[in-house]
């Protein structure tokens, strides 16, 4: 009995302290033990040794009584006294059995947890409690309410007071969920990101998307020509490229607003008028009248390679992937060429690998993302369907898209929406989405309500499609989720001009008309 078990640790000997430190995580707070007696221990020892008790029955009865009292006290007051005043109040405790106590303890822990979860641990006083207003509501409830508001309501709310402005305008959380559903501004695919002058915040996405949807924009003419052309444009992160007769112009873009600076940066010149051109990481490649083709390195002014009469007639379309070049021409041929460096002359050389006879004027070619196959869009007057899929290595026809096309339903523009999907448009006034895995039937079709031919399309490779039609500079915005109706229309320019080419990023749409290039800014 020399050891003092009940002493606090601070008064313990050095060894005990050391040991306690080692097992500190298992230690329990100090607690007064109820009174006990040695009667049980004595009984066990004497019985096992076969001795006789030397305790009188009176003594034994007294010990038992003491033990029972101690037990009762533990139930009645011992544990309860450890409960805080608040916890007692919480459940208005009556005396109860040990099991009940345990269960209620669980419940109380739970309630307290709930308080903490809701961020409401701090209880305001009941007296003098201010009436709730929208501002004094806990922020988590505000978030729930805001998640049901539309974009315009949110803007109205943010103008109301400092706190709401802080929460609504500066916090992307409110906008994040909404921006996931936004049109045009969802910068998800790498195509769209490459094209966008910058990435938008969730709030900007929502607001700009609303502008696209409502048709709120400012229009500006980038250049105006004196005579009419059939321009082709290419929109990139930093630059806008477009053709003007036998020239390709390059303009710099404003990195913040996405608009185009007036200053002409660079001109690429060829001998013949250019029909189409493509820009990839290294090269600018153009195809034009009388089968002429020209290749520039992006950095230098002079063509690294140019060739006339690659085809016997105009090259309508051209595409490049790595060093494979594909040209489609009016002379009803598609040529697969390789572009490589000649070590002797330090010049680029073009070698024709394969010639494919399509038996129809070729209007469009496009190589898929992996560079293994390509689509050919023709005038729709030949024996085959107007949209075909070829293998790039062997030049073999892999499949035809659709069945029973109308004669003359030529495909004017088409490109790969994803690695398996193709988006096409043409004379039959439809924009169609095809899947190369089930080429017989189109996945989605969007019909121009005015029944005019669709000259060009552009897509964000996610859920937005824009189409440029043959008349009045009319451009349409489509949502792939509801292909039956057009989401918005934009009349670009003042003349009755076809839209020859167009491209858009999250902030601007660039539209090429016969005598001007126009920029619609939605920011």
């Amino acid at each position, binding site marked *: 009995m020399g050891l003092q078990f009940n002493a606090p640790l601070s008064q313990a000997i050095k060894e005990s302290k050391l040991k306690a430190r080692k097992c500190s995580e298992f230690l329990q707070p100090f607690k007064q033990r109820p009174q006990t007696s040695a009667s049980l221990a004595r009984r066990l020892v004497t019985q096992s040794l076969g001795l006789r008790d030397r305790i009188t029955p009176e003594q034994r009865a007294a010990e038992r009584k003491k033990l029972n009292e101690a037990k009762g006290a533990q139930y009645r007051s011992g544990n309860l006294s450890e409960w805080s005043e608040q916890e007692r109040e*919480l459940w208005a405790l009556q005396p109860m059995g040990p099991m009940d106590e345990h269960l209620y303890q669980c419940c109380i822990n739970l309630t307290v947890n709930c308080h903490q979860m809701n961020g409401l641990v701090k209880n305001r006083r009941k007296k003098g409690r201010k009436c709730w207003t929208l501002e004094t509501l806990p922020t*988590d409830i505000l978030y729930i*309410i805001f998640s049901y508001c539309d974009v315009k*309501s949110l803007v109205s709310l943010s103008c109301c007071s400092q706190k709401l402005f802080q929460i609504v305008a500066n916090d992307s959380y409110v906008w994040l969920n909404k921006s996931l559903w936004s049109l045009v501004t969802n910068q998800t695919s790498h195509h769209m990101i490459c094209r966008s002058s910058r990435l938008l915040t969730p709030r900007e996405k929502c607001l700009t998307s609303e502008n696209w949807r409502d048709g709120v924009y400012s229009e500006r003419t980038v250049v105006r020509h004196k005579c009419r052309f059939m321009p082709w444009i290419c929109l990139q992160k930093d630059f806008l490229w477009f053709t003007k007769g036998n020239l390709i112009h390059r303009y710099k873009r404003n990195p913040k607003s996405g608009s185009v600076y007036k200053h002409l940066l660079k001109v690429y010149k060829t001998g013949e008028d250019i029909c189409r051109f493509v820009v990839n990481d290294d090269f600018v490649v153009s195809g034009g009248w009388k089968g002429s083709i020209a290749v520039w390195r992006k950095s230098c002014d002079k063509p690294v390679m140019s060739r006339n009469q690659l085809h016997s007639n105009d090259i309508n379309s051209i595409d490049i992937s790595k060093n494979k070049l594909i040209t489609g021409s009016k002379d009803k041929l598609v040529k697969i060429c390789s572009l490589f460096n000649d070590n002797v002359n330090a010049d680029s050389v073009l070698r024709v690998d394969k010639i494919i006879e399509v038996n129809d004027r070729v209007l469009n070619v496009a190589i898929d993302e992996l560079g293994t196959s390509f689509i050919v869009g023709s005038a729709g007057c030949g024996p085959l369907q107007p949209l075909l899929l070829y293998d790039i290595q062997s030049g073999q026809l892999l499949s035809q898209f659709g069945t029973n096309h109308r004669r003359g339903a030529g495909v004017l523009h088409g490109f790969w929406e994803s690695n398996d999907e193709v988006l096409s448009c043409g004379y039959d006034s439809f924009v169609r989405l095809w899947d190369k895995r089930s080429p017989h039937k189109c996945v989605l079709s969007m019909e121009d309500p005015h029944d005019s031919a669709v000259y060009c399309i552009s897509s964000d490779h996610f859920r937005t499609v824009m189409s440029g039609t043959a008349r009045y500079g009319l451009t349409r915005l489509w949502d792939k989720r509801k292909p039956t109706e057009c989401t918005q229309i934009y009349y670009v320019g003042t003349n009755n001009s076809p839209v020859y080419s167009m491209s858009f990023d999250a902030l601007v749409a660039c539209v090429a008309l016969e005598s001007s290039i126009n920029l619609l800014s939605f920011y």
Partner: protein
Amino acid sequence: MNGEYSLDTTEGMAASGDPPTNNAVDDYDAEEALERQREEENKIKIKLKSFEGGVYECGLTAAKMSVMVANMLDALQETDLTKIATREPIPLQNDAVTNKALEKIVEWVDHHWDDPPIDPDFDDEKERRNEELSHWDKQFIDIADQGELFDIIAAANFMDIKGLVEVGAKHICNKIKGKSCTEVREMLKIHNDFTPEEEAAIHKENEWIYAKD
């Protein structure tokens, strides 16, 4: 011999043929049994106590629409549900849970207790968000006193009753919809603490919203 043989085959056929039909019936039965159990449970009344001390009675199934109350009852691990009814009222320790708010909440859960539970796997979140409020809900939530309305929303949020929070949030959003900032401020009695310069700047930034109207 012959008789025994034929007996064997019929038994075999019965064993192989029965299970699929049985399963379908079981599924249906289980569903119905669950429905009946919920109905039975709702006849048991439990008591909820507001922060101000008022005690309100409410069916068990209805009360379990509050995830918080359901968790508390689960923690009791009571097998005999009728015993729950005899317990002390469950205290709701949040000052949003006023007498009035709790009364309204009990009214709401008693009306909605047999709603199908929201299943995040099958319900389209977007669709549910755009759904109009039912006529009953509209009348229920159309409360003139703004403080009381916010009390109900805050209390429902505290008790974790998703459906009611949704109703409240939708109601407020409907009220805000199509209003200009001054109108919103007036309606919700929000104090304008912007300096005139700040307000002008914000207005300029958001001009486009009102441009069309």
